[in-house]
């Protein structure tokens, strides 16, 4: 008895909803951009500079008392949040304290951190500081720059690779799908004000990688079918290709999601934002492979030369062993 997510032969008309889904994608992207513009991103110290201190205590976290203890130090904007996590046992109370970058201080001052730690210890003697991180404003500026370059460089590299392996229309379609995924992910980060730091950039790049993986598999099948069914209209070939790869798409997304959900629930709060971004990205990426990438290719049209060599789709093929 086999688990089958979809029947062996499906012939669903996926492309029938292309206008609706494409419209929905455009609306979602616009919404994401608006949310991003209005609410902004909750940048971590990687990008803003400043200090974060993680506290752990056997006593319950009293945010007000913490705030009162730190306020006299005159450190400017200090945010204190209590961290909840299902993996914490009872009697383990964790808080995250963020202090803005201090004006004019290029280097991080150990004195400031020592003052804050002393102030907190006076409120709650059982408090410990499992992690303290400081980033100077000079470095954080460079980190933003590097992060943006990393994302753009990945997009460019993928654009070139797909263009070399397929045709330019596919390349444009793939990039449109990736931009869609990135924008929606950033939108979700802005909407829920999840901390946006270097790990988030890694997550976004992972999403790009995953989404392109998915897109390439469907493109690969599409290219094969375009050679096989030379006379069939493009839209029908696309439908067929999506149907043929549907089972694989759902299996792969399913197993990856299973793994990620395990990490999301049990992996601890330190990497939760990171894992959440990837989980969300995989859902969006799976959708965009079908409805954004393909739609764009459909709109651009594909040049179909009936005389084209029929082995175009199997350049790398051949038994590997």
């Amino acid at each position, binding site marked *: 008895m*086999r688990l089958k997510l979809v029947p*062996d032969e499906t012939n669903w008309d996926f492309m029938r909803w292309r206008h609706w889904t494409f419209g929905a994608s455009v609306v979602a992207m616009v919404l994401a951009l608006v949310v991003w513009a209005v609410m902004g991103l909750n940048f971590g110290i990687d990008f803003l500079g400043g200090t974060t201190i*993680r506290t752990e205590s056997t006593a319950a976290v009293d945010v007000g008392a913490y705030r009162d203890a730190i306020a006299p130090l005159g450190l400017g904007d200090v945010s204190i949040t209590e961290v909840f996590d299902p*993996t914490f046992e009872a009697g383990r109370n964790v808080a995250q304290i963020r202090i803005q970058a201090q004006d004019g201080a290029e280097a*991080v001052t*150990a004195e400031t*951190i020592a003052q804050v730690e002393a102030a907190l210890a006076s409120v709650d003697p059982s408090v*410990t500081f*499992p*992690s*303290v*991180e*400081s*980033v*100077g404003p*000079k*470095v954080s500026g460079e980190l933003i720059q*590097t992060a943006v*370059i*990393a994302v753009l460089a*990945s997009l460019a*590299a993928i654009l070139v690779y797909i263009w070399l*392996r397929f045709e330019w229309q596919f390349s444009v379609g793939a990039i449109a799908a990736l931009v869609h995924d990135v924008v929606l992910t950033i939108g979700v980060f802005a909407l829920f004000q999840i901390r946006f730091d*270097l790990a988030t950039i*890694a997550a976004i*790049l*992972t999403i790009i*990688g*995953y989404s*392109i*993986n998915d897109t*390439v*598999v469907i493109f*690969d*099948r599409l290219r094969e079918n375009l050679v096989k069914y030379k006379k069939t209209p493009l839209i029908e070939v696309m439908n067929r290709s999506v149907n043929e*790869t549907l089972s694989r798409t759902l*299996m*792969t997304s399913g*197993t*990856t*999601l*299973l*793994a*990620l959900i*395990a*990490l999301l*629930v*049990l992996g*601890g709060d*330190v*990497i939760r934002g*990171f894992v959440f971004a*990837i989980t969300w990205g995989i859902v969006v990426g799976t959708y965009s492979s079908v409805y954004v990438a393909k739609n764009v290719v459909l709109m651009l049209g594909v040049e179909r030369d009936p005389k084209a060599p029929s082995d175009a*789709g199997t*350049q*790398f*093929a051949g*038994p*590997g*062993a």
Partner: protein
Amino acid sequence: MIQIDAWKRVLILGVCLLGLLWALPNLFYSRVEPYNDAAAAVEAGAVSTPEIEAALARWPGFLPSGLVNLGLDLRGGAHLLAEVQLEDVYAARVEGLWPEVRDALRDVRGEVGTIRRQDAPPGELRVRISQPEGLQAAVDAVRALASPVVSVTGVGESDLAVTGAGDVVSVTLGEAERRATDDRTMQQSLEIIRRRVDEAGTREPTIQRQGADRILIQVPGIGSASELKALIGTTAKLTFHAVSGRTADPETRVDADELLRPSLDEEGVFYVLERAPVVSGDDLTDSQPAFDQNGLPSVTFRFNPSGARAFGQFTGANVGAPFAIVLDEEVVTAPTIREAITGGSGQITGNFDVEEANRLAILLRAGALPAEMTFLEERTVGPELGQDSIDAGKVASLVALAAVVVFMVAAYGLFGVFAMAALGINIALIFAVLSTIGGTLTLPGIAGIVLTIGMAVDANVLVFERIREELRTARGPARAIELGYERALSAIVDANITTFIIAAILFTLGSGPVRGFAVTLGIGILTSVFTAIFVTRLFIVLWFERRRPKTIEV
């Protein structure tokens, strides 16, 4: 008929077995780690103690003992990003030129008249001469001090830039010399930091140059970044100067070739010193904590031959006069010279306690940092938080793995079992590669492995789905398996190359945890492609050959 040559079978199975073997030590982390430490200690010539023997007995020596380095976020420790103030060195270099320049100009006194040093910005030396018409002679005399730059890029260029205007000669370092100096400064800083960190006896520190003027320092197991800063950040610049006076007035005006320095332990006492040191800490070869004749903690030091000679000459010529030992711009002590000290060794006494004397000795022994450093980034992760993360990561990975196994076996039956066996080998291979190349496993790195678990399945799914399709056209199971692999290959390769491109970009541009993620992702892609197209396939072929099924169900 599906076939794999015998030698290929041996090769594939051999790689799998090697992978399992190399990954093995990681299962016994707490045993292998002391073993490695003990082995390293013996290698370094340590005398065997019962502890070392016990540690060595805990792991058989014929097995591989490479371990995955745990990143700071997993093990706990401190991370610092320091920026070296390269300009400091230009100033020190130019400063050191003054006696030579003075002597060179004195030699041409007839043409340039009297000379007087002028105040100048750091990194520049200005000398006023009393006869402006002798400027060219003065410039030529100073230029004669310059020597060719010692570096590959600066061949043919001179190390000093000497200019003259009116009655002032100005000396700075030339462009090529600055570049060469920058490089030397960075290498020297790296070396000194490494020595200081090693003196403290921590394990596997990472000390790397980043870009033109930065150094990344990561030390596992150290309590906090401030502790690390205290260890490496202190410049501990030691110099010996001739003393020209003593005063209680901090506003005392001194000549351009003199310095005013406070006393370390006498409140309100200042010394007027000759600016150019007699000997500097660079000439120091050894330094040990000791006790002086009164039984108080002190620090002994020993000079190299040239330092000993200079020190011997100076003390010989100045018996009865005081000289000052200056540490980090403070006068530690200013004893009177009783006789020429020719042996090149001496003792610093001061108001130290034993711990301070010990620390000072370490700092002096490791040499002075050539330039000051500012810290741009510092991170401390406590060991408990790291352990929590490891535990959480372990549980999550096992649950993820179990879920994927159930799902795959339910969907593909026996073929799913093959794929999962290959996945197990895949994970072992990732750990084997990481252990062998000394890669570092970070928290995002664990996420990278979990993601690989998900993605590794993809290649198998692509193949299995393809086999299912080929089975429908009913040309026999062997043909279906062969075609399945053949036709899925292009999609597998394309999909993985694109992801690999991203891992490569992340590795190049990323730092810290992002890099750790890129490493595990990149290795994971390589090993998962290998296991999906070679290992799973070999399992299927081996099974097929034994059973010869007429029909298969995938």
